[in-house]
């Protein structure tokens, strides 16, 4: 009998050193030889919700997880990133902890399988991004985290800049249509080769997020596992 399992469309060639199974997903926690960064982590297994409503402000519950007012702005709390996409739409990514059940309101849709989700971070991560898109991650007028929407390697993407360090150091989250997974990973790893970009596991991401957002309880494991 075939074991029920979910598969990420992102398949790195690196050898997985440590993994765990969560909610039918096999999640790579660490790869052998992840290098010194930058890193590319597959987060396609994390739960992502789409929220659309004429009045998004009525979804400002629980406190601290309000939908940001302005399109392009983001709010990160307890490992949940809420991003305002436009006047009537927001997305909610459960980056660290597992997600609770999808709320009953009809405005919510689970879109976890619609996209891939990648984290690109570490030294020169933004130099990698600059090779693939014309979006301005280094705009000093914007406070992280913030959302940019546009083509990344010619594919429509949503990109959330999470951290901006010295020079081109920093990190971002990227989602695009699931079907582009293979092409996108190939493009990113190709662009990042000169900087030593390597696939890394979820633990690397968790550590980074904890460093980038020290106020976050990045070790929280509330709800179902992610």
């Amino acid at each position, binding site marked *: *009998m*075939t*074991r*029920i*399992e*979910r*598969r*990420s*469309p992102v398949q790195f060639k690196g050898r997985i050193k440590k993994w765990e199974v969560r909610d*039918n*997903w096999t999640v790579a926690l660490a790869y052998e030889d992840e290098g010194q960064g930058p890193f590319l982590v597959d987060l*396609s*297994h994390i739960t992502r919700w*789409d929220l*659309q*409503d*004429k009045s998004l402000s009525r979804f400002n519950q629980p406190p601290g997880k309000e939908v940001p007012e302005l399109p392009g702005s983001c709010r990160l709390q307890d490992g949940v990133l809420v991003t305002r996409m436009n006047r*009537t*739409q927001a997305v909610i990514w459960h980056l660290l902890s597992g997600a609770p059940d999808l709320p009953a309101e*009809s*405005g919510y*849709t689970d*879109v*976890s*399988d*619609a*996209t891939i989700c990648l984290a690109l971070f570490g030294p020169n991560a933004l130099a990698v991004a*600059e*090779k*693939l*898109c*014309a979006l*301005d991650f*280094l*705009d*000093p007028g914007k406070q992280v985290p913030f959302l940019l929407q546009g083509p990344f*390697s*010619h*594919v429509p993407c949503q990109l959330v800049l999470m951290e901006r360090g010295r020079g081109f150091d920093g990190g971002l989250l990227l989602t695009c*249509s*699931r*079907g*582009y*997974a*293979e*092409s*996108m990973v*190939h*493009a990113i790893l*190709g*662009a990042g*080769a*000169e900087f030593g970009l390597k696939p890394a596991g979820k633990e690397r991401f968790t550590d980074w997020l904890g460093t980038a957002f020290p106020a976050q309880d990045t070790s929280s494991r509330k709800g179902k596992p992610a």
Partner: protein
Amino acid sequence: MRLDRLPTLRINPSETCTLHYNGKTSAGVAGDTVATALYANGVRVFGRSLKYHRPRGLYSLDGECSNTCMAVDGIPNVRAENTPAKNGMHIDAQNVQGSADFDWMGFMDKLDWLMPAGFYYRTLHKPACLWPFALKQVRKVAGLGKISPDFKMKGRYAEIYPTADVCVIGGGAAGMSAALAAAEGGLRVILLEARPWLGGSFDYRVSPYDGEKALYQRARELAAQVEAAANIRVFKHAANVGLYNNNLVTAFQVGPEGGAFDERYIEIRAASVVVATGCIERPLLFENNERPGVMQVGCAHRLARTYGLLPGRRAVFSIGHDLGLEAAVDLCDLGMEIACVADIREDGQNPDLLLALAEREIPLLRGWVAAKAYGAKQVKKVTLRTLEGSVKRQLECDLLVASAGRTPLTGPLTLAQARLRFDAHTGYFLPADLPAKMHAAGSLTGRNHPLAIEASGRLAGLKAAADCGANTAEAVAAAAARLSQLPGPERGTKLVMAPVKGRKSFICFDEDTTVKNIKQAIDMGFDVPELIKRFTSAGTGPGQGGIPGHNLPLFAARYQALAGATPVPTTARVPLVPTLLATYAGAHHDMCKRTPLDELQKRDGGVFRRIGVWQRARYFSEDFSCREEVLNVRNNVGMLDGSTLGKFRLHGPDALKALQRVYVGNMVKLTPGKIKYSAMCNEDGCVIDDGVVVKIAENDYYFTTSTVRAGETAEWFRYHTRYDGWDYHIVNFTDALGVINVSGPNARKVLQKVADADLSNEAFPFGGYREFVIQGGIPVRAMRLGFVGELSYELHAPASYMVCLWQILAAAGKEFGIRNFGVEAQNVLRMEKCHIILGVESEQRTNLLDLGLGFLWDRHKTETKTVGTVALRQVEADPARLRLVGIEMDDPRRAPRDGSILVDKRIRGYVCTARRSFTLERSVGMALVEAEMAALGTRLEIYEDECNGQKLAARVVPMPFYDPQGNRMRM
């Protein structure tokens, strides 16, 4: 011998490299270009000219002409002057029969009288039969360089897309000053420099900058400041190639040897732009002005100061500006004999330079100019004349340094739509007005004094910072005041050409266009530079107008001597300098979509084809007729990956209204558990999409679209409801849900083994929609559809479960002989059933009624207007429309190709899809034909590509061909 101790050198003589040229090995040093390395090895003739096969040599050292275009490692037309020498390079001369030194085609130079301006437009056309032959010969000799069509470009090509507040084009003193000024307030600044180092015209000059340091020292000082500034990003060896609206600046950069890229494309978005590209030299027009050994001032000077190579032993200078005097003095100090300096100017020279010439006993002839150079492959002698031509003098030399004046590099400004006007004082074409947020600085503006160059750069940089919102008003005022105290633009020389006839005075080296050719063109009525350019080809070669760009309009105005006429420059276009197409292509990632089952299908022998953005398994064997795949579905059961189908959730209080707006059917009649097939039309009533709609809950719908329309669907809904203010929302599930089609008489048996629901015909009839779970863990949305004409279940499941689901179904179907079928088999199956695919059985003009889909249109919907129905009402009774008909071929084994045309005395329609049907054992298809030919039994003639007049015969037959009652779908 290299001058290896000069402080201005940009080479490292201790590090050598080896080049292969003309069967010999040549040694260069680190920092050499291909051209300088060859020059160091005694090469003086680098190639031959386009038409006349005249010998050509070093002239500008900046790749302003095709003189030193060579084939490097198999790549033709590489500018040897700009290309860094790398160890092991193989170099070949171009446009030669034999070698560059001994070219069998050299006799062409004597035949110039046979080739007047535009000769190929005017001769060789009569008698008409001559032209095809002549065309071949012209094509054989035209063009520079040869490349095989299957040549594979080596190297690594990349691209980057940086953003800046201020982009400065040009890394000379003005550009660096501009960058530093703009960066003072913390703005992000990008500095582009075409050469591998910063410094511009200061870089190689030892003349004093101020009382303390020389120009080259000042250049290095500025460069150190620029490179130390954290907010200035410097791209060296990065030539600007384009400048577009909203200050989009493009460039290409040559990478360092062993670096991450060989060349990369740079696309910069900047709020403000400073153009500080400086000047090049205006070539001096005289007889044999492109003979090897004739070179520009900067070329001779830089050869010595930058590359440590004395350009000759004994030189004559014929110049029109102080840089020429400066170079003569400096080269004399470096050990070259200067026979004479002929200065076009009678007066106006820098007194210090005159004194320096006198101290070195270099003869100076004021108001003299070179009239003719002699020597077959290398200058041996030169004739100098007074400007009016009355007195002449001949001098022996192996180098003639010639330059009429300077000309600003205004290409980027022209691209940005700046208007240029002729400035009589400088003799330059200068911008009359600049676009918003664009500034010019440096010698480009006519200023030559070093301090003025820097001051103009600073002023431009501050203005650019102000464009970005920086408060620089006070600083701008101070910089402007400082600039006004410094020397302004200098008077330029007025001489256009030496007093000669111009038969061998070349105005464009790339195209072998002489002054005589220009005269011929003007005499034939081509009286403005843009027309002359096209008729004579002057300025259309690889140098992108660098050599003739200034002289052509000057000469055209002078020759016509029109009262009040001012010279008008020709238009610069991108790319401003030649660029490899490979660089434009960049990394060239082929971005395509793959379904969740991609890997599994590859493992099962799938043959993939690109369909839109998707890679899809079209076949599962080398038999592209798909006979076995088709018959297995008809007789047993098959599985198809249909994940590319567009899938959407539509929810909200006004969701139904939105559906009613875009679908022709009436969605009020939708009931949960049932699917409704419908279509969307555009405003013309033409069908753009079809699919099924399901009501999931109140105000909550799920619908599918065709693969190709999936990307536009959400926008289509929003566009057609944009004024209504309706409250509805759309979620794209196209990638979120995969689709597996289980089709065939045994489909139910397979599915029933793994599903937790009753799948009997009564519980789940044709046209039904159900949600259930597979093997206790995989949620699916299932539809009873019949696209292929058999009992079918379309299973929509979360994409992450798709591999697992496929494996479960494959295991369950093993006992029934389940097998994959691909897109082509599906195409045959649905064609037998006469189910259409939009875009195959339709094209842009095909409306709903043409396809026989009028039954989908509910004419009684009143709540909302439906897109396309106004047009449909208008064409409803139009007898002149095409009609979709079924056709059967007379020869049952021979189907026509898709797209073949139906003809009698004219084209009457075309075949949409036709295949040999193994189920029916005949060849059938669908065609769009004129209405009068749509009657059953009508004979049709089909004309295929390359059929040699042997038309195929068919007749119109009833549709569908297979299972007309549809019993098999409902079983």
